[in-house]
């Protein structure tokens, strides 16, 4: 806990240099700071290792942006992405930085709605609004955006986004037959060629091997954190767990890995000492579904506000991002890119059909995390996750797992109803 009020640090000159709408952005900064203080810093029994991540939020629009700009000044590429299917290793191997751009705030939705239709995914609207309103320093700092074809809303938005920032698209197939995987590998090669072009250098096998190692280490650290959260009682709140998964998308990977591992050391000590967050008998819930992009903490706030705890996120900002590692024994550029693509195809996004692997994975994570119920969360208008909900629900019924489905966006309109539904769900689990 901090004695002084928490504040997201301001860098108005740097923001002006990035052609941002500074007065507007400054207001958003203060709101985010307040929200963070209320949701995160007020939590009891926080691990001391969270101080690093608190600082990553305080410096979200400053310190990290400086690093991005320094990288650019050296002629190294900074690339923005919106999906865990874009291979970060390749950007790292070229000496660049890959950042997952944000799209988790209601604040930028009205900016998007001046251009895009209203009845589409809130994440796409929020992300697009950040660029349209010039209120995201990451968006302003990137050399280009690399999008993909995982949903219709994104696919068609790229065409419009491209008029504001150069936007390239990687085709992600929607089936996993051999000819689809061949296409995928070809797309990865195109991505590599584009990154090399911008970086002005060729990626060597040594470069790629080093980058794969860095990313695998980051994944292993996140896996370690996740398995510590699975301990009963859990040593860290779900909010803090989610926060770290969100920060994973913009922090420098080597430093991040070190800090996550240091936190894990502390959590191991806490487990030995019997520290339980929030309490020993807290109801344990697992979340599955669509990503919760920074600062979307809506469900976690509601669930943990009732004294329950979230112990796992089966999500792109969650296990889908780190559950699989790349085989480090592959040799030759061709072999290494094939091994890389092999790993990426294990991500079980609902854009694939069939997607039985995900149903199995959700149940596996439920068992591994010793959760007592599953909240399946889908963003509004996300057709594939919304429809896959039917199969997740059926699997939960079969396995007698308490289950709640929530479809929501970033607005606060449905907080009352959601609170009732979540509390009733926890009552149902508690008996």
């Amino acid at each position: 806990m901090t004695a002084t009020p928490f504040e997201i640090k301001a860098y108005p000159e740097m923001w002006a240099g990035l052609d941002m709408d500074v007065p507007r952005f400054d207001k958003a900064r203060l709101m985010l700071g307040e929200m963070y203080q209320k949701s995160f810093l007020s939590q009891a029994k926080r691990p001391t290792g969270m101080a690093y991540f608190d600082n990553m939020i305080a410096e979200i629009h400053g310190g990290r942006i400086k690093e991005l700009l320094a990288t650019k000044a050296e002629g190294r590429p900074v690339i923005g992405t919106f999906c865990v299917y874009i291979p970060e290793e390749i950007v790292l191997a070229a000496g660049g930085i890959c950042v997952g751009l944000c799209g988790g705030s209601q604040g930028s939705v009205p900016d998007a709605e001046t251009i895009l239709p209203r009845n589409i995914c809130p994440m796409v609207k929020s992300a697009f609004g950040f660029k349209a309103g010039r209120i995201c320093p990451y968006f302003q700092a990137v050399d280009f955006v690399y999008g993909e074809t995982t949903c219709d809303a994104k696919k068609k938005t790229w065409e419009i986004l491209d008029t504001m920032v150069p936007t390239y698209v990687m085709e992600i197939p929607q089936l996993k037959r051999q000819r689809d995987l061949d296409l995928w590998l070809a797309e990865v090669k195109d991505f590599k060629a584009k990154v090399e072009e911008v970086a002005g250098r060729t990626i060597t096998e040594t470069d790629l091997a080093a980058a794969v190692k860095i990313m695998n280490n980051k994944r292993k650290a996140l896996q370690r954190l996740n398995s510590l959260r699975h301990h009963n009682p859990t040593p860290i709140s779900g909010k803090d767990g989610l926060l770290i998964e969100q920060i994973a998308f913009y922090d420098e990977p080597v430093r991040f890995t070190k800090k996550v591992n240091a936190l894990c050391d502390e959590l191991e000590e806490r487990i030995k000492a019997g520290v339980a967050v929030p309490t020993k008998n807290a109801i344990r819930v697992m979340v599955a579904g669509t990503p919760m992009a920074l600062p979307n903490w809506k469900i976690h706030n509601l669930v943990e506000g009732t004294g329950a705890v979230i112990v796992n996120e089966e999500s792109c900002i969650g296990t889908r991002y780190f559950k699989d590692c790349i085989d480090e024994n592959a040799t030759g550029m061709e072999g290494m890119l094939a091994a890389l693509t092999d790993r990426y195809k294990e991500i079980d996004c609902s854009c694939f059909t069939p997607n039985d692997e995900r149903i199995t994975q959700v149940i596996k994570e439920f068992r591994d995390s010793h959760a007592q119920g599953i909240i399946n969360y889908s963003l509004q208008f996300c057709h594939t996750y919304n429809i896959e909900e039917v199969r997740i629900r059926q699997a939960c019924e079969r396995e007698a797992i308490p289950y709640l489905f929530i479809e929501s966006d970033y607005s606060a309109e449905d907080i009352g109803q959601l609170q009732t539904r979540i509390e009733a769900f926890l009552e149902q689990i508690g008996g």
Partner: protein
Amino acid sequence: MYIGVDLGSRTVKMAVWDGERLVEHRIAASGFAPHRQAEEMIADYRAKVVVATGYGRHLAAGHFADAVITEIRAHARGISHEFPGCPTIVDVGGQDSKVISLDAAGRVRNFQMNDKCAAGTGRFLEIMAASLAYTLEEFGQAALAADHEVQINSMCTVFAESEVISMKNRGIAREQIARAVHSSVADRLAGMLARLGHSDPVAFSGGVARNPCMVDLLKKRMPGVRVLVPKLPDITGALGAALHGTGV
């Protein structure tokens, strides 16, 4: 005395349980400060335990309530008392509608609740009644008496209202439009029941269960299933909360 207070979106309901029977109940408009309304209502009783439910439950907990349960659990408890062993509940309140399935012991097994829009709620019926210049009582009676049915396609309150207006201006009889409004709510409830799965009988609670046309239409959509309406459907949640208080 065990008191249950249901601080709903439209009304505050109170039930007083003396350990053996329901000795008193009251209903009042929620007003701007529902917890004050509730506090006034319970002031006349020497309560052993006060349990709050409904939208204002947490507000009540900050002021006078000893315990808080959700309306889902409160309705489950209230219906299990009135109709022991009843496996399914449809509750239509002012701001939401829900379907609850219970196990043999009356515990909540699963539930479905409408999300943020008012479709299929008491509020929807109220707005439609007003646009047809009916009181709520007349509305249900008129709909029941309609000899012919037209169809409303929109479930959204705002769009449905404009649909109703255009029907009025096409000269369609008022009671037929009233019937159409009721049918659209019944369809929505039947959809929620089908999604969650139901068995016989189905209890119908909440203020909307006093509407004869809604009960009739719900029965028609579930042939062979009994639809049970409690004597005082509005206070099911408050009664459930009071009963919950006996175990606090």
